[in-house]
Structure formats: C-alpha cells, structure tokens
C-alpha cells in the first residue's frame, strides 16, 4: 500500500519521538510497515535483543582501571567485555563486602548497562522499548552512582524489572520494583525494621511512583478523617500519617545480604529479595483510610498498600500526566491527559496495560500535532545523529561523560526524581554548549566511539555531490532543517570546505563530516 504524505508525517513523528529516527538502511522497510505495522511490531517486541544488536553487544568492552592496594588486590587496567546476563546470586557472591575488592569491580554491572543502553539506542530494532525503558528508569529511578550495591545490581534491575515490564502491567512492575535489590538499597527499605520504620521508600512510593505530589495533603498531617472521601474509604489524597503507616507495612522487605537476622540466624548472601517475618511490624495499620488487621499473612501488608495505590484515581492521573508529558510534550491539552487517565484506570488489570496506553497516545491527533515540542534528551540527540549519518558506533566512557556534561548522566541523576522531564533542563547555556560539543566530538571521534576513517556514508556522499555547498545543503535536508544560501555557505566554510570547489576533494570526507555536525547543531534538530 503506497504511503500517503499524511501517514508519512505520522510515521516520522513516531520514529522521532518514540524512537531515535530512521536509519537509511531501514527507511524503505519502515515506510512499507506504515503506522499500523510499525506500532504493532514496536509495542510487542520479543524478549531480548534483535540479532544484530545482540551480536554487537557481544563485542562491547568497557575500560576498567584501578590501582593496587597492598595485601588486597593488584592493579588492573583492561578493556573487559560487558556482562548483562549474570544471575544476581553470582554477582552477590563476588560482591561479598567481606572480600577485598575494588569499587570499580563491584560497579562493573553498572558500566555494562550504561554501555548497552547507548548501544541499543543506536542499533536496537525495538526503538520504542528503548524510549520506554528510559522513561521507566526515570520514573523508578535509582542512582547507580550513590552506592556500590546499587551499581552491582543494575544489570538485573534493567533486565528483570524495567525492560521486562516496560510495556506490561503497572501493578506488576510496581511490585517488581518494590522487591528489587536496586530499589531496596537506594530507598533504604532493606534496613527498615519494626519499631521505627525507615520512611524513605514509602515517601517516594507515594509521591513519585504512584499518587503524585498533587495528592499530598500535607496540611492535614494526621487528621485523616478530614481528607475528603475518607469516611467512605476513598480519600482524595494522602497525608504524612499514611506515609508513616505504609513504611510500617514494608518492614521486613529486604535483601539476602549475608547479614544476621538475630543472634542465631543469618541471611544467605544471594542479593535476592526476601521477607523477614520478625523484622516486620505486624500490628494493625491504617493506610488511605483503610484499616489493616494485625498480623496478616507474610507480605500481605505491603502488597495491600501497592493495591490501594494502583487502584487510586490519583495514580492514574499522575501516570497519565507523566507519560503524556514524555511522549506528547509540555503543552499536552489537559482534556487529553484526562482521557489517558481514564484509560489507565480501566486497564489496571490488563497484562499489556502500558502498551495499550502508548498505542492510544501514539495514534492520537494530539501526538501528531506535538511535533517539535520536545527538546531531545542528550542520548536521543546522540542516537539520532549517529543513526541519521549511518556511523559505526561503539559506546565508551568518554561519550558517557559527555552525555553527562550535556545534562544526562545515565542512571546517575542525584535524586529519586530521576532526570526531570523538562525542556529547561536541556536548554541552559552549559547544556547547549555541550550538545554542540557532543555532535562535533562524535564526528571527530573524540571519544573513540566510531571508526576514525571516513565512513561509507560519507564516501557515498562525496561521490554523489558536486560541491561543498551542495553536500552541506543535503545535510540540512537530512536533518529537516530549512537553510538559506548564506547559512549553507557559512556552514561549509566552518567545516573547512572550499564552497564551490568540485569535487570536494581527497580529504573531503572529514570536512563533509564537520559540515554535517554543524548542520545538526541547528535549533530545529535539537527538538523532536
């Protein structure tokens, strides 16, 4: 079926916003799929990577280096293949805090996930999963740089929690997060005990993961009866007392870290989630105007809190608002958010709840009309540029650092909010400079992410085009940037091309590459 101009625009918007653009070598296939075909495939990706990406992941190495410490470990400086599929018990056995081991060794799973995330953003066939995995990593953010155990559990968190559920059911995902090694460490529920529970997880569970800050009625502190709807068991929002009580509900949800339970018993050292009955505060509780009887079944208190939160309409509103802000943009109409919230609430039991919601958004006119309203996150800018240019790509630590300079330290946002979904964050002068630097650096191989020789793409370009200005004009077209003659001339000069010389010349590919980078620095290419 031939694709219409309207469908083509929709498809481009889909691939730019719910993916990182179209590679030249997949253009005709995607145009053949059309909107429906593309969404069908992207919303139901198989578990695991496509064969091309899997093969490339198998070849990725990451630099690991540390100094010797006497009587503990020798110095090391090597490129080590990344490891994504180790079971957590194997990592934890090696992690044993009693064993002397450099922090860099313990943190290698974090490096592996960083490398895989960059590589998949460029190569994965399942682009929408990459975008959604990032969304959920931010929503259920753990700072992998905060503490070694979090870094050590990142591969498992990314694989078994985020990617596994990123298009599935929210309630299932929420419990997978609540019982994940990474989150139990990050929000310190691991050490929460009956008597004076640790409120860290419960607080952010309410505010960030489910109900949202708009539902926090802090002026009613402990006067739960004053919360509208409380009398009928449906309070409109939550108060501090709900947080305190929920924290009690999650006591005993912990990690098998080899520590002692009491004088006579020890937890095994596996890194797995476990529930320790005698750390749990079993007495009666009241959460969201709902009474919990004392001494319920193991884990029943915590699971009941998760149920109450997922069923609460404030969670649907909060999630709809958040997912619309990410996928549609900052100026999404409130009526549209309300429609998505309603759909969210109706699908809370559906195994493919999230996929259904994403489809509803992706097929809406609001989505199509939102073109250009989102400033690309630094990883999106990187991936779109590399994909558009058809460059060979290898993830490196240098590139990771540059993404951080541009405002996106992967898995390293300092607070549980994750990286804010706000254009402003990416538009400060510092962030802008580093976005430009990112494009120049990728082009000139500052961080060893590519092959320093001219690529086939650029050779083909050089063969195809007559003069420097013609080539530069092509690059602007490739990035969808309108450019007048003056700008094209300046850009080709900035790239060291002799504007009207024909052909571009023997060393021309290097200059062509710079011209492409400068074209990609344009304001238009910063947004999608």
């Amino acid at each position: 079926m031939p694709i219409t101009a309207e469908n083509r625009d929709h498809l481009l918007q889909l691939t730019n916003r719910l993916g990182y653009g179209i590679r030249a070598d997949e253009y005709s296939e995607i145009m053949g799929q059309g909107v429906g075909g593309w969404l069908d495939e992207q919303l139901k990706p198989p578990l695991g990577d496509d064969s091309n990406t899997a093969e490339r992941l198998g070849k990725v190495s990451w630099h690991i280096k540390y100094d010797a410490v006497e009587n503990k470990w020798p110095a090391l400086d090597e490129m080590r293949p990344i490891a994504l599929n180790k079971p957590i018990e194997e990592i934890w056995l090696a992690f044993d805090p009693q064993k002397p081991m450099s922090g860099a060794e313990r943190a290698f799973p974090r490096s592996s996930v960083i490398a895989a995330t960059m590589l998949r953003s460029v190569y994965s066939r399942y682009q929408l999963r990459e975008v959604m995995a990032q969304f959920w990593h931010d929503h259920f953010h753990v700072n992998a740089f905060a503490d070694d155990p979090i870094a050590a559990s990142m591969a498992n968190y990314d694989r078994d929690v985020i990617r596994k559920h990123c298009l599935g059911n929210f309630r299932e995902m929420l419990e997978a997060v609540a019982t994940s090694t990474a989150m139990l460490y990050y929000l310190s529920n691991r050490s929460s005990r009956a008597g004076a529970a640790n409120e860290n997880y419960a607080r952010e569970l309410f505010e960030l993961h489910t109900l949202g800050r708009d539902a926090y009625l802090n002026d009613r502190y402990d006067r739960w009866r004053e919360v509208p709807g409380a009398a009928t068991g449906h309070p409109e929002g939550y108060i501090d007392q709900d947080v305190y009580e929920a924290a009690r509900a999650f006591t005993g949800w912990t990690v098998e870290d080899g520590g002692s339970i009491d004088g006579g018993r020890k937890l095994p050292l596996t890194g797995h989630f476990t529930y320790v009955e005698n750390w749990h505060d079993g007495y009666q509780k009241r959460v969201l105007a709902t009474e919990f009887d004392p001494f319920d079944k193991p884990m029943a208190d915590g699971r009941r809190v998760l149920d109450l939160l997922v069923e609460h309409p404030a969670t649907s509103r909060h999630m709809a608002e958040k997912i619309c802000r990410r996928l549609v943009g900052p100026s999404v109409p409130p009526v549209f958010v309300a429609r998505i919230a309603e759909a969210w609430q109706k699908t809370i039991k559906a195994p493919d709840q999230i996929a259904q919601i994403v489809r509803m958004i992706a097929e809406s006119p609001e989505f199509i009309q939102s073109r250009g309203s989102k400033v690309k996150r630094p990883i999106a800018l990187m991936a779109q540029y590399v994909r558009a240019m058809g460059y060979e790509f290898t993830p490196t630590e240098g590139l990771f650092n540059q993404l951080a300079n541009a405002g996106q330290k992967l898995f390293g946002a300092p607070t549980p909010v994750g990286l804010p979904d706000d254009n402003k964050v990416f538009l400060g002068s510092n962030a802008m400079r580093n976005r430009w630097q990112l494009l120049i650096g990728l082009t000139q191989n500052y961080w060893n992410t590519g092959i320093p020789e001219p690529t086939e793409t650029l050779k083909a370009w050089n063969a195809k085009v007559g003069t420097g200005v013609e080539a530069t004009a092509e690059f602007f077209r490739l990035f969808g940037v309108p450019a007048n003659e003056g700008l094209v001339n300046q850009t080709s000069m900035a790239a060291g091309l002799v504007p009207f010389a024909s052909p571009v010349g023997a060393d021309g590919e290097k200059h062509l590459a710079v011209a492409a980078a400068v074209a990609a620095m344009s304001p238009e290419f910063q947004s999608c």
Partner: protein
Amino acid sequence: MPQMTRRQILKALAAAGVSTAALPMIRHMAFAAEASDKPILIVLHLRGGCDGLNFISPANDPDFIAARASDLRVLDDGKDAGYSLANGPAAHIDFRLHALAGGLSELYKQGNLAFIHACGLTDATRSHFIATDMIESGVGSDADLTRMESGWLARALMEHGSPAALQAIAVSGDIAGDLHGLNNVLAAPDVNNGLPFVGGANVSTALWSMYGNTPGPVGEAGKLALQLPTIIDQKVIRDAQGHTIPYQPDNGASYDKAGGLANTLKSVARLVKMDVGLQAITMDYGGWDTHEYQAGRFRNLVEPMSNGLAAFWNDLSAYHNRLVVVGITEFGRRLRGNKSGGTDHGRAGVSFVLGGRANGGKFYGQWPGLSSAQLDEGVDLAVTTDYRRILTEVLDHVNGQKNAAIFPNYHYTGGLGIF
C-alpha cells in the same frame, strides 16, 4: 582553540548577515573588566534535607538526649565532643557544633558566621521536591507555588540588581530554581578550564546565523550559550600555548580537604575574583538525605564543607566585605531516629550566613524546645523563623533596596539583625 574578541564577534555576525540590532544582548555585553565594590550573594544549597540537630545539637538538653541515639548527637564531653558555640539561642542549653566542623567554629568565633536554628518553611510539607520548589520559588504555600514560575533570586536581580551582561551563575550542571526566569544567567559546573567556543570561531559564526533569529526557547538558549560563556572565558588565564593555568588560591589557602566541594568552591572563588559584574552565584552540595547510617555519612559531609568554606574565606580575604554566603536546606530531620541508624524527613533545620559585614558569632531566631508539647505535631523541631525572613534581610543588605515584595504573600516583620 581560538578565542574571539568583541570585535571579532561583531565582524563574524556582520559576515553572517546578522544584524546586531536584532541581538540586543550583545550591544551591552561587558567585555572589559568591571571592577566593582558591589556585594555578591552566594547561595549554598544543602540538598536532601540536612539534619540541623546533628549539625548543631542542643547537647545537654534532656529532651534531646532522651529522644536520640548518641551517634546522631553532638556530644558535650569525651573525645568526640563538638565545639561549644557562644551566644546560643536558649539560656542553659549548650549548643554544640559538629566535632568535624572546626573550620566553621573558627569563622563563628571571628564573628563572620551567624547561625539560624529552627528555621525553614512555614508550610508543613515533608516532601523534598515540594519543599525545594517552594524555597527556590520563594513562596510559603502550595497555592503560591502553582502560581510562581520564577525563582526568588531571579526576581530580586530583575527588580533590584545592577544591569550587567551576566548577573548570575549557577556553579552546577543546570540553573538552580532560585534563578529560573532570569535571562542573563549561566550554568557552569566548573570554570577552571575556561568556556571556549565550541568548534572554534568559524563554527560559532554559523551557529550565530542559525540561532540569532530563531525565536522560542531553543533559539534563546542558543544565543545565550554563544554570548554568556565568553564573558567568563576571556578572564580565564592561559599560557602561550592556550592552556588554562591552574587556579592559585590566595593567602596559602588550600581546597585539598574540601572533598566534593573543592572544584565548586574554586570555581566560585575564581568567578568572584574575575570582577565581571556578577551579583549572585548558586552552588549545590547534596547527600544530606540520611535515612540510614547517618552518623558516618554526616561526618563525611560536614568535614569537607567546613574545611571548604574555611579555605574559601581565607582565599577571598580581600573580598570579605562584599561577600555574603547563605547556606540553606529544604528541611531538617525527625528528632527521633529510625532503626536504620538514620533520620526521616522533618521540619525545621539550620541556615547560616557568612559575611564580612554580617553580625556573626551569634545565633538568630527563637529556640522552640524539644519537649513533646513543643515539637511540631509531636515529632519534629518546630519552625520559628520563616526562611523568607532570612532571605529578605540578606537581599536588603546585598542590593540596598526593600525586598519583601520578592516573596509573594509574605508579611515581612523586619530583619533578625544579621546585618
């Protein structure tokens, strides 16, 4: 990488066919040194909710001793005893500064450092993010927060600041909420290596063409990113090969023991000495959200902060009368600890003001007490000083104007006497 002078930029712009009239910013860009005697306000955000009671403890208060484990208190005897602070906020209570804050204790004794205990938001939020947003916006309620788009410091600079091409810098990856809404503000986490043009002068000419006439937030961001860093970059000293020369603090000051604050403070010190008309600088020092294992984490935060600020004050001796450093956190922490060896989100915390013209060596504000009836909701140190009272007094001193209106719906009853 080549640096551009003002003339080169103008030439480049003309060559690019960009009219400088279309770019009002560039016409009054300050390229020459602007020696000044105007005050500079430096805001240090202690992010995560610093436990004021562990930073400065009412060490001999029986209510305090009864409620808290000893490793989360500053002790008044033994080898780990903290520094006793004269002129505390309550008679008969020995207020002790953390044992690893010797540098701050010296600044207090010298009369440059003032503490305000039991201060914070009058709104009872125990959320980091709402509390941070409120403080950075300069409001005291949820309702005002939804109406307020700009930061308190941005409004103060727009209303009462001196015109300058670059009024403020966030020494951070992005612009702190205090400065949201201000146009001539730059974020730079580290200026020690300069801020040269990306890709060189020719590339920036092309960038000017692309961004110079592009409306909207991306266009504006690009223009500022081309203009503002130059103001700083040209003041960074380079050798003949164009390499930046490492920063040399004055007075033999050393930032070596300032940990995670070292590069930040060096950048701030450098920016102060550049004399480019800066009126405000913000910086961040995070990690205070100590829900577990607080004792060790707190030590690791307090010691570098104390060392760093002491080094900074020594380094900038020549500027003391112009400098005001305000330390602020979103909230304090619960009086009673939890079983993770930490503390959960509470209410009142500690702020401090460091300034050559500040009446330091004293506490300001009322001490509410820690008995059950005196606590906020029976659990937290109560707020007796609205954070806006401190900031209003500081702003009045810094810009010489009346700043109460910077904080909407706030009734300012006059300063605490810090200045």
